[in-house]
């Protein structure tokens, strides 16, 4: 294919040899979000100072967003509490791109929620659009066909001035990307609260369907196997974005790793058409058995894909950056490795299959390039201009990052919060007041119709949607030859979570489970997106730990496992954190979609029953 060679890498590229001979060079690790002791740790691992490219890789991979360094100790609770019984239908769980559930008859379903909060504040349309794009690639990387999306949105009050910029932009972005990919939108949430005014939440869920034998996991094994980069060209998009956006407050995103590069926009522009073509191309590659391992390129671009593939495999890896098709001129190795250009995937392919792989890509007009291979060494070695610019043990980049047990403390304000109960609120006392209250509630932003949003989303495409909006849960037929289906709901009442994060998280889980069950489905798995303020605030860390505990114990009681999810910290405006927002997505199975329960009253004369107390 059209592997257009890169411009010669900058003459000044910082090589491993150069790094070894200039141990005292000052490096801007602080600006990349690394702390003193983290930088010292990198020097210790390498036995020398890192090159610029290595520093960029470690910085982005050790960021909060990629390394889960503040949340890891808590997220372990999910693993510890999940029993073999709960796990019995799981083909893949936490740690993979997305959890995979065996649903019988050789079918499996994979789903995951992810956040794209900060980018959606900077550029609501593109931020939300690329959020959908990212989660869809995660699902593709499991070997699945993405079949539907959902979106959980949280913005400032409806009448706050910036909401008029953020909400329509986010909705148009979700719609633009999802509609153009041909993925029906099954539902979601729109929630208004002042704490989201400067920090909206855009959580996107994608669900995919696969045949069990097509399950693909991200690993690079087999010495001599080729590493193929395919999809869009690599440009200067969102360079350093992940570490800057997700680890510090955004705004001063000095996007450059090279000293002379002018300030780059930290936005990425989505190209859903390229992604649609990439989906079809990947599915054809899977069907033809041409893929050994695969990884999507997400937040940390090639840094993440190469280090994760290599550390999950059994050998080393060599990559030649001169072969990476570029969209911009004069990109440094560090920039190529950190680029967040969208709509790219990285595959491991046996040498004898490379030609067939390229032929499939050609059929779909997808640019594909061999950029390296699996070696029998231990290290990930990356060259540019014929010189080695990265030579690192891949696990130290991808998995053995720093882990923090951050201090946590129940905020003093919690007692006052709990003391204020509904008993203090005025209540309607006359029928007229009651009527007025009902009308006011119905018209209030939290309860008003969501048609303005859902009318912008395609819910019909592919012809398998049997329940979308309005409804308790989205219901989807898996295949039109059978009536087997799935139901999905996402929920969170963050005001409950503020009052009591543990109970709030349990309630979010219970609500999503009820919504799925009310649609006639059997709940089987959970994915979550934990949106919180700064982990450096002990009060926020306490909320986080409590919410995880609540979710973990709730899952045990219900007998369904958490299969994966996402943590988004640093959601705050100055020092004010958002409401603790653990969004819970629940997947349910429907044996016969023709018998699934529809939302709303049926026919006149039907009896109405109230169940429970």
């Amino acid at each position, binding site marked *: 294919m059209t592997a257009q060679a890169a411009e010669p890498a900058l003459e000044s590229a910082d090589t491993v040899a150069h790094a070894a001979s200039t141990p005292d060079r000052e490096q801007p690790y602080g600006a990349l979000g690394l702390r003193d002791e983290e930088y010292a740790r990198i020097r210790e691992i390498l036995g020398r100072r890192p090159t610029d490219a290595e520093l960029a890789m470690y910085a982005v991979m050790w960021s909060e967003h990629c390394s889960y360094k503040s949340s890891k100790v808590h997220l372990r609770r999910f693993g510890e509490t999940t029993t073999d019984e709960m796990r019995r239908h799981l083909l893949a769980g936490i740690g993979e791109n997305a959890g995979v559930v065996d649903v019988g008859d050789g079918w499996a379903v994979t789903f995951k929620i992810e956040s794209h909060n900060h980018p959606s504040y900077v*550029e609501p349309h593109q931020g939300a659009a690329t959020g959908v794009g990212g989660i869809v690639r995660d699902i593709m990387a499991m070997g699945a066909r993405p079949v539907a999306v959902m979106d959980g949105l949280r913005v400032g009050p409806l009448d706050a001035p910036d909401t008029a910029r953020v909400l329509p932009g986010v909705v148009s972005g979700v719609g633009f990307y999802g509609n153009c990919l041909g993925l029906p939108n099954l539902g979601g949430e729109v929630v208004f609260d002042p704490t989201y005014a400067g920090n909206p939440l855009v959580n996107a869920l994608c669900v995919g369907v696969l045949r069990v034998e097509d399950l693909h996991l991200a690993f690079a094994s087999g010495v001599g196997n080729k590493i193929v980069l395919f999809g869009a060209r690599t440009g200067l*998009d969102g360079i350093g974005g992940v570490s800057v956006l997700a680890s510090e407050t955004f705004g001063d995103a000095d996007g450059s790793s090279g000293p002379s590069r002018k300030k*780059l*926009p930290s*936005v*990425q*522009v989505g*190209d859903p058409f390229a992604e649609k073509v990439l989906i079809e191309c990947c599915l054809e590659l899977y069907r033809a058995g041409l893929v050994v391992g695969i990884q999507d390129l997400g937040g940390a671009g090639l840094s993440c894909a190469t280090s994760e593939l290599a550390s999950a495999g059994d050998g080393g890896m060599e990559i030649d950056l001169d072969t990476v098709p570029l969209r*911009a001129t004069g990109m440094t190795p560090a920039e190529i490795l950190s680029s967040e250009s*969208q709509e790219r995937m990285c595959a491991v392919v046996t040498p004898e299959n490379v030609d067939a792989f390229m032929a499939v890509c050609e059929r779909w007009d997808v640019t594909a390039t061999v950029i390296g291979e699996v070696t029998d060494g231990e290290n990930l070695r990356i060259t540019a201009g014929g010189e080695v610019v990265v030579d690192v043990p891949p696990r130290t980049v991808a998995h053995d990052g720093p882990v923090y047990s951050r201090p946590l403390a129940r905020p003093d304000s919690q007692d006052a919060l709990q003391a204020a109960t509904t008993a203090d609120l005025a209540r309607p006392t006359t029928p007229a007041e009651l009527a007025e209250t009902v009308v006011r509630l119905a018209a209030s932003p939290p309860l008003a119709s969501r048609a303005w949003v859902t009318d912008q989303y395609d819910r019909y495409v592919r012809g398998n949607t049997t329940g979308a909006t309005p409804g308790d849960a989205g219901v989807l037929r898996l295949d039109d030859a059978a009536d087997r289906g799935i139901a999905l709901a996402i929920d969170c009442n963050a005001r409950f979570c503020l009052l009591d994060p543990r109970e709030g998280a349990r309630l979010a889980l219970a609500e999503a489970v009820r919504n799925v069950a009310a649609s006639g489905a059997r709940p089987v798995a959970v994915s979550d997106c934990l949106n919180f303020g700064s982990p450096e605030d002990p009060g926020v860390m306490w909320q986080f730990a409590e919410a995880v505990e609540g979710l973990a114990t709730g899952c045990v009681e219900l007998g369904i496992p958490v299969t994966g999810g996402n943590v988004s910290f640093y959601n705050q405006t100055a020092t004010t954190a958002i409401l603790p927002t653990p969004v819970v997505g629940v997947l349910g199975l429907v044996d016969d979609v023709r018998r699934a329960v529809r939302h709303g009253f049926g026919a006149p004369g039907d009896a109405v029953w109230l169940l429970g107390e």
Partner: protein
Amino acid sequence: MARVIVDVLPKAEILDPQGQAVARAMGRLGVTGVADVRQGKHFVLEVDDSVGDAELERIAETLLANPVMEEWVVRRDGGVTQQ
């Protein structure tokens, strides 16, 4: 009344899927010799003579272009007033 033109283009570093789609279509149409295409927006404003250059620039920056991703040129009657 004066006619003012504002041309808006995606910044050079920013992906331009529209321009790329057009460039690829050229090849399929049998057109050779077009190396690159960028697609932006073209606004034609009819404005009172009272509207000054600074005001036009403000309109372009806040309404017609998205400064995060785009750059623009404001022209009056064919003369460039500001970049």
